[in-house]
Each structure stands twice: as structure tokens, then as C-alpha cells.
């Protein structure tokens, strides 16, 4: 990978950016440098009417030149508008306001459930994570985009030890029965690949492998039986336009240098 003209984090930002449609509203929480870069990039390329909300700061469309580390930084308030946090919570609960909710976790399972709470039993955790924050709202967002910077079998697991951010729960029957306003997880972006979910089984499915990554590598590093279609394309590399936008947004490499 030494010859690449872009970093893995930048490629992940491109995958997310391409997923965002013009006119949509997206939201993200803590440690969201890649999603924030992706949203700004989408605005600068194909989605000028995209709105995005930088989590706890309540900022709507941070101008982010340059990108910053913290989702609650006051630099985010150089923005089109800003809402008080309790109002952001109302938006998240509404059910029809947010098209895309960026989520993630210490563990992500095959149905797209996320866990930010603990590894092992909640009562005697092997590792205590930070907590659920706003992930319980996932079932009320139009689509969930899950991302992680660690694609391995400890992160991508058969079943989360604690469900703090519901995906398709225990599968299609249980999910359908709930009649939720959201459509559940739509995309998973990792350093190795992009994944979506099988329409019927609601199980995670390989969508594209990043340049230089093999399907076998992905399968090996995934802790559950991933659905692998016959033909798996390679994730298109960042275009010049995309890279130009990204580097204007993130000149110092806040996102780029992550992975």
C-alpha cells in the first residue's frame, strides 16, 4: 500500500460521501472525523444541499476548514446554524428528520447491532467502553451507516455482548415486527471493505473490497459468516475531485492520518 496517493481513512471518507444523497440530513456523534470529512466532501462535490449535524455541538453544516478532532469543538460553530442539544435530541427522536445516522462501536455484529458499552458481561466486563450516548436512536433514522477503524474478528462479531445501538436486532422477523420508522443499517465502512446487508436475511454482505485487499482477508478478519456475493468489485479509488475536496477540508490530516 506504500504507493497509494491516499490514506485508508480518505478512502473510507469517499465511500461514505458517495453514499450521501443531495438534500439529505445526516448526523454523527463523538470521534467522527471521517464522517464529518465525508459530509463536507459530499457538499463540495455531488450533494450541495446535504445538511449535517455535528453531534453534541448542535452545529448544522459546520464549515470545517479545516476539520477538527472533537465533535463538540466550538470550531464546529462556524456553521450555517446551530441547535441546542435538547433540540437535537428531539430531531433524533422524530423519526422522519434524519436520513443518515453514523454509528459504530467496540463491537458490531452481523445484523448491524452496535456495542459501545462493554466486552464480556455487563456486570463483570473484560473491557469497559465509554457508553451508549445517542446510539439508541439508530432505529429512528432513515439509514444507519456504520464505520470502524478496526476490521478484525474482535470488532465484527457474531453477536454483540451488549446491544447499545440496535441494527436488525435478531434478524428479519423480529425487526419487521417492530414497525420502526427507520430502515436500519445500510452500509458498513471499514479499513478493508464496504459492506451492506442482504435484503432478506438482513445479514452483513460484502459490497466491495478496498484496493489491495482480498476477499479472503476480509473473511478471515470477520468474526461471523459474512455473505460474499459471487462477484465482489473493488472499491473505486478516490477521484481527483474527491481528493482535492478532502484535502481542502482536511489540510492537516486530522482524518487522513487516522489510518
Amino acid at each position: 500500500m506504500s504507493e497509494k496517493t491516499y490514506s485508508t481513512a480518505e478512502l473510507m471518507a469517499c465511500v461514505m460521501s458517495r453514499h450521501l444523497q443531495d438534500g439529505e440530513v445526516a448526523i454523527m456523534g463523538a470521534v467522527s472525523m471521517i464522517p464529518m470529512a465525508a459530509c463536507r466532501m459530499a457538499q463540495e462535490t455531488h450533494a450541495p444541499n446535504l445538511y449535517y449535524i455535528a453531534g453534541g455541538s448542535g452545529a448544522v453544516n459546520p464549515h470545517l476548514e479545516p476539520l477538527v478532532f472533537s465533535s463538540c469543538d466550538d470550531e464546529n460553530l462556524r456553521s450555517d446554524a446551530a441547535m441546542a442539544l435538547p433540540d437535537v435530541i428531539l430531531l433524533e427522536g422524530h423519526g422522519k428528520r434524519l436520513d443518515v445516522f453514523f454509528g459504530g462501536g467496540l463491537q458490531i455484529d452481523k445484523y448491524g447491532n452496535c456495542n459501545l458499552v462493554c466486552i464480556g458481561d455487563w456486570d463483570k466486563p473484560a473491557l469497559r467502553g465509554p457508553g451508549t450516548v445517542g446510539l439508541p436512536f439508530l432505529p429512528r433514522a432513515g439509514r444507519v451507516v456504520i464505520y470502524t477503524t478496526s476490521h478484525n474478528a474482535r470488532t465484527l462479531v457474531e453477536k454483540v455482548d451488549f446491544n447499545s445501538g440496535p441494527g436488525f436486532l435478531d434478524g428479519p422477523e423480529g425487526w419487521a415486527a417492530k414497525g420502526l420508522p427507520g430502515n436500519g443499517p445500510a452500509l458498513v465502512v471499514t479499513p478493508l471493505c464496504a459492506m451492506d446487508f442482504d435484503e432478506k436475511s438482513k445479514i452483513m454482505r460484502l459490497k466491495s473490497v478496498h484496493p489491495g485487499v482480498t476477499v479472503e482477508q476480509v473473511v478471515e478478519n470477520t468474526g461471523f459468516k459474512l455473505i460474499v456475493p459471487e462477484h465482489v468489485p473493488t472499491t473505486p479509488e478516490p477521484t481527483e475531485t474527491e481528493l482535492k475536496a478532502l484535502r481542502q477540508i482536511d489540510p492537516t490530516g486530522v482524518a487522513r492520518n487516522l489510518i
Partner: protein
Amino acid sequence: MGRTQKLMSAREAVSHWVGDRCESLAVGGMHMHNNPMALIREIIRQGKKIKRLITSPSADINADLLIGAGLVEEILTAYVGFEHLGLAPNFRRAVETKSMRLLECDEPFIVYGLQAGAGGLPFIPYPKGLELNDLHKINPEMYRFTTDPYTGDEVMTAAPIKPSVALVHCQEADPYGNALFKGSEFTDRQMVMAADTVIIQAEKIVPDLARKYGSTKVNVPGFLVSAVVEAPYGCHPTSSHGYYTFDEAHLKEYIKACKTPETFAAYLQHYVTGIPEEEYAGRIGTERLQALSKRGESE
């Protein structure tokens, strides 16, 4: 007759308004921003025990330092961490070793709960779908269920949160307790509205705040505030919106210091218990603090 000012030192405010075993203490700020650290350090100096610590939806060193100092019996929180800098060392250790009771909840629980506490509402029912995570299974005392009288559905509820004391950082305040946030309010104003007693620390005391900014910007009314403490750089090592950014190097030093009891004790001694709050800024260094200050105001 003149109006009574509420200005006092951090020492006086904490000594007078916080009990030796505080029933429930809410600490403002979110992630590494607007943490009321001057007051929190003073809580540690005075060894105030905290029966229940209540955090904003995302706590940082405000909670972790109190936990490290061994003062917290139980914590109601949805997140303690250092965002891009990693996990919260003392929080993690206290939960993993069970030296502190954890009342686990989610972000809406805190927002709804404070709203209910502020408004005398018996509870707030959750939107449908928020009962699908595992929280109510491990915290059934706080997450309960009732009937939606309009649909007949069973709905999950959040209990009211009424902190006995809230510690909140405002950028500016007047001597009577009227105060404002220059940047994000997070859940700080909800804490002010829900708590029995409120101590505000402010970067600056401005006698005629409403004339300077317009009254609608001054949305913490003085009658809810018991004491106002002037605390320039009082959020350090976290940021104060509109005034200065967080001190990433110091936060990393803190996280490193938390690795052993000895290094943590040395940190506490050096930055907290060994000095009065008035000497804290000097210990960090004026140049360093000025370097953290914003070039201009973000709004």
C-alpha cells in the same frame, strides 16, 4: 436597598453550597469542552463525597478526575471517555473493578430526565424503538414501562433527574447569577433548571451582561443560581467555548498519569490538592494558557 451579589471564591462556594456527602452532583460540560474544572478541583480539595455523580450525555475529565480521587459512590452516565484520545482511565478501572456503582443510561435519558426534573414532569416516555437496546435490562429501576393512553402501546420511560447540586461553567455572568454560554450549551442549562442548587463558574464577570449581548442571549436567570465564581481558564484542561481550546498535551499527560496510583497521586498533588485554585493557572503557565486562547471569537 441594594441587590445582593452572589460572587464568591471557589472555596467559599463549594464549602457553603455542597454537603460533605452530596446526594447528587451534576457536572456540566460535554466531552473536552466547558467542564467546570475549577469547581471540580475544589470539590476534591475539600474531599466532598458524592453519593451520585450525574454527567452530561458525554463526560470527560470532569467525571474521571472525581472518580480517580475516590469520591464517587455511583455514577449516572451515558458516556465517559476522551473522544479521539481514548478511554477514560479511572472510569474504566472503577467499573471493571466494581469500586463504583454504575447507573448506565443513554443520552436521551439524561436529556429527558433533566427536562422532567426541571419541569415537574413525572417522567418522559421514549419514542418507539428506543427500548430495543439492552439498557433497560440492566437498569430496570430507572427505565420503566407504562401505557401510552393514545395507542394502548407499552412505552419505555425515563425517570426525572433532580440533582441536588449542579456545577456549570458559563463564559460570562453578572454578579447576580445571570449568565450566558458563548458557544454550545450542551445540557448545562437543563442542569441549571433541574438542580436544587447551582454554582456557576465564569471566565469573566460582566456587570451589564444583558446590555452587552441582548437579554435573550442571557438565558440563565440569576434566581436559579446560588453562587457565582470568577474562574478565568477555569475549564482547563478542557476548552471554554469562545475563549480557549482544550489542552491536548495536558489531557494526554493526565491519561498517562492515571496508569499507576503513584503517578495519579502525583498529578493530584501537583495540580489539585497541593495548591489552592487561585494558583492553578500559574501552575499551568500563562504563556501556555494564552496559546490555547482563540484567535477570534467563533461567534
